[in-house]
């Protein structure tokens, strides 16, 4: 009998970390301190692009209270790191490539002294031409940011015959879309505490998402073995993909300072430092050209995307790979030609962020779909259902979808819930008044987990205590997304015990196996599967012991409601705790290791063909907006989010992801934009970088669709990123329904909605210009007086 049917799988249990977080006992990285600790600070670049002529640290080193001042030359081992391309520097040696680059480090007895010391470091730069426009960076002769040239990724998908596809079409739609830099905005900024370890090496507690890759870089920088570097994850105050490379460099820097001083070193970024240094979500320029027949069938898709990779490669090769796989959306088309490039610029480097290459293309795809509906004289729901994948469909990469493809189901549910078709018609016809209503629809398909990016496996360990309580640990990290709760609940489900008996330990690189990064919505499907395997190992042992205790064959026993019961009559033979105690007495192993490796994927880089992901998830969003046509202000009044998650392990956790994803997507669609002018960020904190407040996010109706997938534990797939990737296009499509005007650049802020384009300050904001601009009155008003 399937054990989960009568246990807690699916139940909206309280998160395992809820109590600590609401009572304040949760310990975040910045809450850790040690006696005699020093404070580390980073001197960052003064130019987005410059050669370093000299660095003089003499005066800083002499300041009272300063214990170490380090530059690139002081790094004993590898100065560079990078998961895909190793070209990011822990400290810039010869050249700075963006304003967030670190040039020198200080460890001092207080943060104030450290800051003072930074001011005493004298760096002479020779400014180099700044490349800030990714499309200009592609030109022959553009200044090079790295020696190998600026275009560092080109992914392709080639399917069918694109010329033939356009020849067969009745009409062609061609549009250019642009998206913006997005800041992750985790409420917790980057923080670590590094201490020299007892027998050599270093121990680091921090706000780190991918501990194993950070550990590799620390070991390489300090010339240590991996077993000498222990990274322990503190309770994380949010990541959204943002605590990867920026944490790797912080770990390396703190470890270097700890090594140099022999003392613990704490580093915590202020919000301003965090915004300046951290990587962002990629802005894309997207050229979409589709050929279609009058009946709405798509005959050709030609797609070209340019991603601004910023100063370093970071995750760009993988982010853009997801884009190339998903660039056509979940729509059938025989003839596809997609090219996705990533290029270096002197902007903040860009990397992983919730969605990982999908929010950008989904905005383009779903806007195109509405344009197609318009041309074909269909409504947005009809056109999608007409073209969307079904079971057995073949994707642009030639992958046959051999699982339940629920696009039609999620679309119809989203549309039905919001009353889409009736409203769409009515709002479209209403052209009076300054405040207009509109509804919009968007859907997506998304490859689950890493796909052909690389090895996809994870470990979890389950340890049953003699009192029947359980400890779960894993290489998959909880960042607030709830992976710990999911894994714990799965274990509780296998053992038939309440969740309160399970404790989840944060990842410790010295105690669990390298499980790859916790990214790509793989926490539940990969980590959860590993946890299930681990628990099943111990379950078999415990049932064996129970069999010996009762004389009944273990095959006739199961675990439910905290007891071992006889399957036949559900009679309780012994409590879980009694069996655990007996197991200990008998000297049997109560510890289980679970390993899960995801099914195989394939990819041919030359043609862009292959089984890119082992399974996919499907979702649809519907938005209702009111547009103030005189000011461009858009209010989202109603929102429906529908996702097929395979199986919800914890319904509240799934709903939480869906609602949070919509809130973030709303910010992407309407508000957020990290503006860089010639490589110089225009915002430094949340007074200037606007994210939605609770007054901007409407109540979100969530509909969980469950088509269990054999690829995941108990049929579960994923929801973290899908939840975030289609809110913006649903909103933009609703704006179109309200106004008849298409927004092709995100965010759809006041100016873009009112004017159809963004306000752009003319010319570069050179230092000469800056003076006059600042003194002119109509600079957008800030609460605090403008700097400088």
């Amino acid at each position: 009998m399937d054990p989960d049917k009568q246990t807690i799988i699916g139940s909206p249990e309280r998160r395992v970390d809820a109590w600590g977080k609401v009572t304040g006992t949760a310990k975040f990285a910045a809450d850790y301190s040690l006696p005699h600790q020093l404070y580390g600070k980073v001197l960052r670049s003064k130019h987005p692009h410059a050669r370093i002529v000299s660095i003089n640290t003499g005066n800083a080193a002499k300041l009272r209270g300063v214990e170490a001042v380090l530059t690139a030359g002081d790094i004993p081992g590898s100065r560079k790191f990078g998961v895909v391309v190793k070209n990011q520097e822990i400290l810039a040696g010869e050249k700075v490539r963006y304003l967030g680059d670190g040039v020198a480090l200080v460890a001092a007895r207080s943060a104030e002294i450290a800051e003072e010391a930074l001011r005493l470091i004298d760096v002479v730069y020779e400014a180099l031409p700044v490349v800030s426009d990714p499309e200009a960076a592609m030109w022959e002769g553009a200044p090079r940011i790295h020696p190998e040239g600026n275009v560092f990724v080109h992914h392709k998908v080639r399917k069918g015959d694109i010329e033939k596809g356009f020849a067969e079409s009745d009409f062609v739609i061609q549009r250019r879309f642009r998206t913006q830099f997005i800041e992750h905005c985790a409420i917790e900024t980057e923080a670590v505490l590094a201490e020299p370890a007892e027998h050599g090496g270093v121990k680091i507690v921090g706000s780190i998402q991918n501990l194993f890759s950070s550990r590799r870089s620390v070991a390489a920088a300090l010339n240590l073995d991996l077993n000498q570097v222990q990274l322990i994850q503190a309770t994380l105050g949010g990541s959204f993909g943002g605590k990867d490379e920026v944490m790797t460099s912080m770990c390396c820097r703190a470890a270097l300072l700890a090594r140099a001083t022999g003392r613990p070193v704490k580093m915590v970024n202020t919000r301003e430092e965090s915004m300046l240094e951290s990587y962002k979500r990629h802005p894309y320029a997207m050229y979409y050209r589709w050929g279609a027949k009058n009946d709405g069938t798509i005959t050709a898709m030609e797609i070209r995307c340019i991603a601004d990779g910023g100063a370093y490669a970071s995750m760009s090769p993988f982010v853009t790979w997801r884009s190339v796989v998903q660039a056509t959306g979940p729509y059938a088309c025989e003839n596809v030609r997609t090219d996705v490039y990533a290029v270096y610029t002197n902007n903040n480097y860009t990397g992983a962020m919730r969605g990982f290459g999908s929010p950008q293309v989904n905005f383009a795809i779903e806007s195109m779909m509405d344009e197609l509906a318009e041309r074909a004289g269909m409504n947005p729901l009809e056109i999608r259902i007409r073209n969307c994948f079904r079971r057995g469909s073949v994707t642009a990469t030639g992958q046959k979808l051999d699982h339940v493809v629920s696009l039609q189901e999620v679309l119809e549910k989203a549309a039905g819930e919001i009353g889409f078709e009736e409203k769409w018609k009515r709002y479209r016809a209403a052209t009076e008044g300054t405040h207009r209503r509109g509804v919009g629809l968007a859907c997506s398909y998304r490859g689950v987990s890493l796909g052909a990016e690389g090895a996809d496996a994870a470990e979890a360990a389950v340890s049953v205590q003699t009192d029947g309580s359980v400890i779960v640990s894993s290489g998959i990290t909880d960042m607030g997304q709830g992976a710990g709760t999911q894994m714990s609940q799965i274990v509780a489900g296998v053992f038939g015990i309440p969740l309160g008996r399970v404790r989840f330990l944060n990842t410790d690189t010295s105690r669990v196996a390298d499980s790859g990064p916790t990214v790509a919505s793989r926490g539940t499907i990969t980590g959860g599967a590993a946890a299930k395997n681990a628990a099943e190992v111990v379950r078999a042992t415990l049932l064996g012991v129970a069999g010996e205790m009762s004389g009944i064959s273990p095959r006739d026993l199961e675990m439910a409601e905290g007891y071992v019961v006889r399957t036949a009559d559900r009679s309780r033979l012994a409590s879980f705790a009694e069996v655990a105690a007996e197991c200990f007495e008998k000297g049997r192993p109560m510890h289980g290791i679970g390993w899960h490796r995801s099914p195989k994927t394939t990819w041919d880089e030359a043609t862009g063909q292959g089984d890119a992901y082992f399974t996919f998830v499907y979702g649809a969003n519907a938005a209702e907006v009111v547009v103030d046509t005189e000011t461009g202000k858009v209010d989202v009044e109603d929102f429906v989010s529908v996702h097929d998650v395979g199986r919800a392990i914890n319904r509240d956790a799934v709903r939480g992801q869906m609602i949070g994803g919509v809130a973030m997507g709303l910010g992407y669609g309407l508000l957020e934009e990290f503006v860089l002018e010639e490589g110089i960020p225009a915002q430094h904190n949340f007074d200037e970088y606007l994210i939605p407040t609770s007054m901007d996010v409407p109540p979100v109706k969530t509909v969980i669709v469950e088509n269990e997938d054999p690829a995941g534990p108990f049929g579960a797939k994923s929801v973290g990123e899908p939840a975030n990737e289609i809110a913006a296009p649903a909103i933009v499509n609703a704006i179109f329904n309200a106004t008849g005007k298409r927004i092709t650049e995100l965010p759809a802020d006041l100016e873009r909605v009112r004017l159809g384009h963004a306000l752009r300050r003319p010319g570069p904001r050179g230092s000469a210009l800056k003076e006059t601009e600042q003194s002119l009155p109509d600079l957008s008003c800030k609460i605090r007086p403008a700097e400088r």
Partner: protein
Amino acid sequence: MKPFTYIAPGSVKEAVAALHENGGTARVLAGGTDLLLEWRRPGVRMPAVVVDISRIESLRRISLEGPDILLGPLATHGELMRSGVIRSGAAILASAASTIGSPQIRNRGTIGGNIMNGAPCADTVPPLIALGATVTLSSADGTRECHLSGFFNKPYATIATGEELLTQVRFPALLPGTKASFVKLARRNALSISRLSVAAVVSVDDSGLITDARIVPGAAHSVWKRTMEAENLLIGKAPSATLFAEAGRVVSAVVIKETGRRWSTEYKEPVIAALVRRTLEKCFTDNDGHPS
């Protein structure tokens, strides 16, 4: 932030004495919602002395004296928004205060700080100017009262010297029948400073003709000013949609004339006009809660 000497006087007298003793090197701290942000800025000049006036109870009052409403500078936006005196005598101010920041900010931020900070987007200032407010400045040398309309030199700069404390804001309560409205355009629905705003106070006679009008756009000029050109257009006429639209165009033209055509004019020109029209319309529909 660097260390500073912290003084928390219990009276205005002590406060102005502290300001006097420390010449230009002291800063007044009220709710701190502007000041603490300012101190986060890299390279900012920190004051040597901070005079925290938040414990001076006498500066907290909101009261009606004869025809006038008197406000202590420590009245918070939350208090203004909830005060019966303000809601019945100057609901436009309560309405503006209610748009500021978030509940937390409104519970800390004061009207004195809003005025003295002098940001072009300060939301209480346009209504106060439209209400004809004056402010009292006190120093060791005595006090002076000035019109708020002449109080600002440029963004973030007032005529007050570093030794002066703002001790009172005074304006006549609106008479029954006077219409007033505040409209704010911001990028989001909370915690959002004004992209643009408009305050308007309009009086009509028994025959329904406009006898007096005051229109003050916010976050539009470098220094707030009433738009006399538009006010004069309204006076003597009956309220109508076309009249209000015309007034909007006039205000917009006046703003653009001052700032010149620039990269942001394309947006501001039509939007200021629309907001002025809406504010005037709102005077005759919602009227920000005033009995009409």
